[in-house]
Structures are given as structure tokens and as C-alpha cells.
């Protein structure tokens, strides 16, 4: 939703077999003693992407980012940026810059000096430094704070300075480690869009590490969901949400109802899955490419389910239960529906009207149904 119409029209290079990846991560592993932080990762990232590495703490996302920056050396594998092998290139010679989670502003230097630091290291002439620093500070709306010290800035202002400092060198890649982690919720939402706008304006490839799925979904062109040092899935936010590749991804991003079962029918245009938990079989309107008898998990997102009082006419895709919990969130409500087997299914409904008249209430007996296209079958 963050992308303007023009960028949506832009070709997606990752779907183009001819396109050369800008960053190529090949079989990269990193172990600290016995602990494997990153496990044989292969990943291609293209020019101009805003790519997110998403995962819980300890999933290896930060280690991967630090290897891109050059602060950690891969135990195995290679990283190429713009075709150059980074193995022997120290951090201070890499064409990448990083925005740190703690912002890492130099406490003894003013905003201006902080931003000028990188250019000074490159021996850029004084006059040009002054111009570029002023321009970038204007861009992040920090121009009037140029002479302040970091401790005289609020969290949001520090974040902008950190961004300006990393961007002013015009790196080929900008690495952002939890760029919004230290901000409060309101500011975070506002800043997400600003970051995306800046990225689109300057066209630098961004790689963002985050544990916040909303952040990743809002900002990314594509994202990699990581778990235990490995990548579970790479894809656009829509792909990852609607078509998770693994059970972990399905459960990690958004909420999901998971029905364990087996394939009982498999054809080119449909499949049927039988779950012992459910009264009815699940019908899917595409092939699963799994043989009958294969154990699977059928996933249906809560918002894809509809509740109704009458028994549905179809022989597929419904469950019957009793409403046991209601969480009213304002814009929508979440209901827990307990099935006869004891399994609890979650559904969510948008609250379109003020009154609660036609909403569900406790102890309502309901049928939950879903469209055959809204179920994802995952191999177990």
C-alpha cells in the first residue's frame, strides 16, 4: 500500500530470469562456536529493492546484515555486491552503509559533524561536504538542528540524523537494523512511509532487518522470512501472507487456523483434504501436487472465514462450533469458535456499523465457511 502507482508499474526484476541480482548471497553460513547463527543461506536482491529480513530474535537476520556490512566474516559462502566479492573487503571499504538499531550517533559531535563524518573519510572537498550535508539534512527535515548534539535530540530526530548520515555517502546499499524499533507506535507508522518515500526518491537498495511483520509488510518490495538461521520463504508481502510456503511462515505472519489432515483426492484442477478435526472435507480449487494419503496442513486465515447461522448447502468447507470468546478491537472483532472436537478456530470480522445487532455473541452456534480459493495446503 506504500507504493505509488508508478512503482507498481515498475517491472519486478526478481521475476525476470535475465535480470542480474545486485546483491548475491551464496551459501553463506556463520557459526559462533557451536552455535550456528546463519545456516547456508542463498539469496538474491535486486537493484532498487526495499528488501526486509523478517524473523524473531535469534533467527540470524542481524548476523546476516552484519555480514553484508562486513562486521562479521562468513564461516562459509560468499557475498557479492554489484558483482564484487566482499570476502576480503573490510567494512570501511564496502560500498554499503548501515543505520544502526541504537542509531550509534557519535555523542561528542554535532548533527552536522555526524553527517559529514563519512564524507570526510573519503576526502571529499570541504565545500562539497557542506553542500551535501545541508541537502541531506533538509531532506530529512533536520536542517535547523544541524548544530545540536545527539543528546539534545528526541528519538525521532536521532533516527533522522542516523538515516541522513548513512545516506549522505550515497552507498550502493543501505542496511537498516530495526530502523524504527526505538520509536513509539504512532511515530513508527508515520516514519515507515517516510522511509519508503525516501527510498523511492533516491533509488538506493535498502535492506531492512525487522522483527515487526507489519513494518515489513508495509515497506518491502520483497521480504525473507527467517527462522533458526535459515530462510523459510522469500516473496512479496502479498505472496508471503496469502501463500506461505511453510507452516512456520503461515503462523509467524498474521494469524492462521491450521487443520492437520491428509489428501484424499488430487486432480489437476482441485484437491480434497480430510481433517479428523472437522465435520466436512476441505475442497481446494487447485492442485496440491501431493499424492493422496500425504499428510498436510490446511491453512485458512481468520478474515477469510464467514460465519452464518444456517447450515451451508455445500458438502465442503465448513465447520460448526460455538462462540466462546470475543475480542472487540474497534475496527474489527475477533471471535473464538470452539468445535465439537475441542479445537478452537479464530475468525475476524470487520465492524462495518456502530451497533452490535448483527454481530455474533457468546454461545451463538455458528457455521464457519470459506471459499475454496482461500485455503492454502502445506506439506507437513
Amino acid at each position, binding site marked *: 500500500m506504500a507504493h505509488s502507482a508508478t512503482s507498481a508499474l515498475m517491472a519486478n526484476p526478481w521475476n525476470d530470469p535475465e535480470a542480474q541480482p545486485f546483491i548475491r548471497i551464496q551459501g553463506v553460513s556463520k557459526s559462533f562456536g557451536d552455535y550456528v547463527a546463519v545456516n547456508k543461506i542463498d539469496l538474491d536482491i535486486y537493484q532498487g529493492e526495499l528488501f526486509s529480513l523478517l524473523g524473531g530474535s535469534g533467527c540470524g537476520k542481524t548476523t546476516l546484515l552484519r555480514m553484508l556490512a562486513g562486521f562479521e566474516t562468513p564461516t562459509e559462502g560468499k557475498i557479492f555486491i554489484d*558483482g*564484487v*566479492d566482499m*570476502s*576480503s*573487503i*573490510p567494512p570501511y*571499504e564496502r560500498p554499503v552503509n548501515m543505520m544502526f538499531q541504537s542509531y550509534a550517533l557519535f555523542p561528542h559531535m554535532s548533527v552536522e559533524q555526524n553527517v559529514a563524518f563519512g564524507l570526510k573519510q573519503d576526502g571529499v572537498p570541504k565545500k562539497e561536504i557542506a553542500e551535501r550535508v545541508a541537502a541531506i539534512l533538509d531532506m530529512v527535515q533536520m536542517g535547523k538542528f544541524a548544530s545540536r548534539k545527539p543528546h539534545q535530540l528526541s528519538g525521532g530526530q536521532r533516527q533522522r540524523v542516523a538515516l541522513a548520515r548513512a545516506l549522505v555517502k550515497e552507498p550502493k546499499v543501505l542496511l537498516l537494523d530495526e530502523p524504527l524499533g526505538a520509536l513509539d507506535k504512532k511515530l513508527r507508522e508515520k516514519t515507515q512511509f517516510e522511509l519508503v518515500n525516501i527510498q523511492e526518491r533516491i533509488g538506493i537498495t535498502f535492506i531492512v532487518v525487522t522483527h515487526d511483520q507489519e513494518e515489513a509488510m508495509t515497506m518491502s518490495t520483497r521480504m525473507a522470512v527467517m527462522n533458526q538461521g535459515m530462510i523459510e520463504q522469500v516473496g512479496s508481502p502479498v505472496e508471503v501472507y496469502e501463500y506461505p510456503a511453510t507452516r512456520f511462515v503461515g503462523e509467524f505472519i498474521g494469524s492462521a487456523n491450521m487443520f492437520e489432515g491428509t489428501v484424499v483426492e488430487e486432480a489437476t484442477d482441485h484437491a480434497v483434504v480430510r481433517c479428523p478435526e472437522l465435520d466436512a472435507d476441505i475442497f481446494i480449487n487447485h492442485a496440491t501436487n501431493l499424492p493422496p494419503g500425504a499428510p498436510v496442513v490446511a491453512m485458512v486465515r481468520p478474515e477469510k472465514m464467514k460465519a452464518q447461522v444456517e447450515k451451508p448447502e455445500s458438502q465442503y468447507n465448513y465447520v460448526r462450533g460455538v462462540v466462546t470468546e470475543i475480542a472487540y478491537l474497534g475496527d474489527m472483532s475477533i471471535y473464538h469458535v470452539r468445535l465439537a472436537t475441542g479445537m478452537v478456530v479464530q475468525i475476524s470480522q470487520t465492524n462495518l456499523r456502530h451497533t452490535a445487532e448483527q454481530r455474533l455473541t457468546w454461545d451463538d452456534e455458528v457455521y464457519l465457511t470459506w471459499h475454496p480459493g482461500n485455503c492454502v495446503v502445506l506439506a507437513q
Partner: protein
Amino acid sequence: MNEISTRVSSVAMTTGEQSVPESRRHRARRSLAVARSGRAGRMLVTALPYLWLVLFFLIPFAIVFKISFSESIRAIPPYAPLFEMVDDTFLQIRLNLANYMMLFEDRLYLAAYLNSIKIAAISTLVCLLIGYPMAYGIARSSKAVRNGLLMLIILPFWTSFLIRVYAWIGLLKNEGLINNFLLWLGLIDQPLPMLYTPFAVYVGIVYSYLPFMILPLYATLEKMDMSLLEAAADLGCKPFKAFLTITLPLSLPGIVAGSLLVFIPAVGEFVIPDLLGGPSTLMIGKVLWTDFFNNRDWPLASAVAVAMLVLLVVPIMLFQRYQQRAEEAKR
């Protein structure tokens, strides 16, 4: 050197995927050189303090050990060489165990040795008993006062140790302040002999080393989460019991560190027993001093030093383990 660098960079090139443009190849070579110079810098940074400590700390102990086996002679320096070439053909090693025999045979040394341990141990205990409530009180005082109170503990440390010991002479003398005060109160009718007694040595050691006990104790107590005690109270634990079962165990690292910081140097203390103790207050540090300066028996003094080190090796290693753990905890 140059050869290696070209070889390494050519390896880097052949393992690279496509043919690398000229400019990048150049860059890769430069980076390798940079990485190597980084390693050289690290070596240099390590080598400087390392070599200094080996030369001025490690080797001296080896020399002490060596000289403890030689014979005292009237010469400059006053010890016989351990190794000697005889007729330019034989290397003669004269190992002289007499110094160590002396330590065991002469009752003076054994008594001094044991007495030092006793005095240091008791002083450590007294320091702990005085220091713990003080450290606890400072840690629990309000933030505004805390820094001031802490500063008052550190301040004596910045003034001369020698002069602080000297102050006790004026206080403990027969005609000193304390005796005068007690006489004036009528508690005693003739001066209590305090100076030049073991008591004065205890007072001096406790007084001088008290800050070393309080500071590590304070550091652990200050870090302690007060809500732990509230949780204990909430669960029905009485204050004293809470102190015994929560505060005390949690401050154990501070107790150990403080005790070692007092005990180890106190064992080898010289100034305090010399100024405040009488001739009967034997301590090993004073014995070493006398052997060295008065008797000019360097080998015997060395043997005394070795014996003292043997005693202190375990506490010193304990202290280092604590120190390392404390540093790791900070990271």
C-alpha cells in the same frame, strides 16, 4: 611480502565468478593489504603492553625464584652466581637450598608466616563486618546523597596512605588522644598501652584497607534489584530472613572480591606493622624488608618472597577469576 599479496589476490580472482574488471582487481588487492595492516596494528597494540608486562612483571619473578637458590656473599650484587663455567668447559650449577631450609628451621620465619595469615584474616573479617553495613547503607540511600557518601569513601584513598597510618601514632600513643580522652572520662587511671601492639596493627590494616572492602560490596549491592526484597516481603518473608536468603547470597561476589582485595596485600603488608607494631609483631613483609635492607641477604629475602607467593597463589587466582567474570558480566 609483495609476492604473497599478488598470489593471494590471484587466488581471489580465480575463485571469483566472472572475470573481474581491472579496477576491481586493484581494489581487491588493496583491501587485502589493508586487512593485513589491520592485523599488524592489532599485533602492535597487543605486543606493547604484553612485552612490557613480560619484562617487568613475569621475568622479575623468575629472577626472584632463581636468586632464592643462590648463596649470599659480600659482593655487588650480594649473591653468588647460580651458573658458572668451570675452565670454560663445564657448566656448573650451584643450587643452594639453604635459604629454604632456613625458612623451616628458624622459628622466626614460620611464626611470621603464620602470624601474617592470622592478622590478615582477622583484619579481613573486621573490614567485612564494618564495611558491609556501610556499603549497604550507601547503596540504599537516596540518589542525591549516594554519590557524596561514596566520594567520602574514596577520598581517603586519594590522600597519602603513609600519612593515614601515621595519624594513628598520634591517636594510639600512651600520651595520645585516645588515652587522654579515656583518662579524662575516668574510665582508666593509667594509659592503656596500644601503640606497638598487635592491636595497633589490626587497627591500621582495617583502617587502611576498609575502602577496598566497601567499594566492591557497594558495587554488587547497588546493582541489586530492590523489587526482589519487595517480592520476598510480598511472599511473606521477614526482613532479616530476606536479608539472609536474598541480599547476602546476591552480594557474595562483592564479599569475595572485597575480602581478597584486603587479605592478599595485608599478608605482605610492611608499613603498618613497621610503624604501629612493636618488635614482637612479626609479619612476613617486615621480615623480608629486614632481611633485604638491614641484613643485605638478597637470596634469603627472595626465598621469603617465593614462600609468600606460594601462599598467595590461590587467593590471587581466585581474585583474577572474579575480576574476569565481573568484566564479562559488563558486556
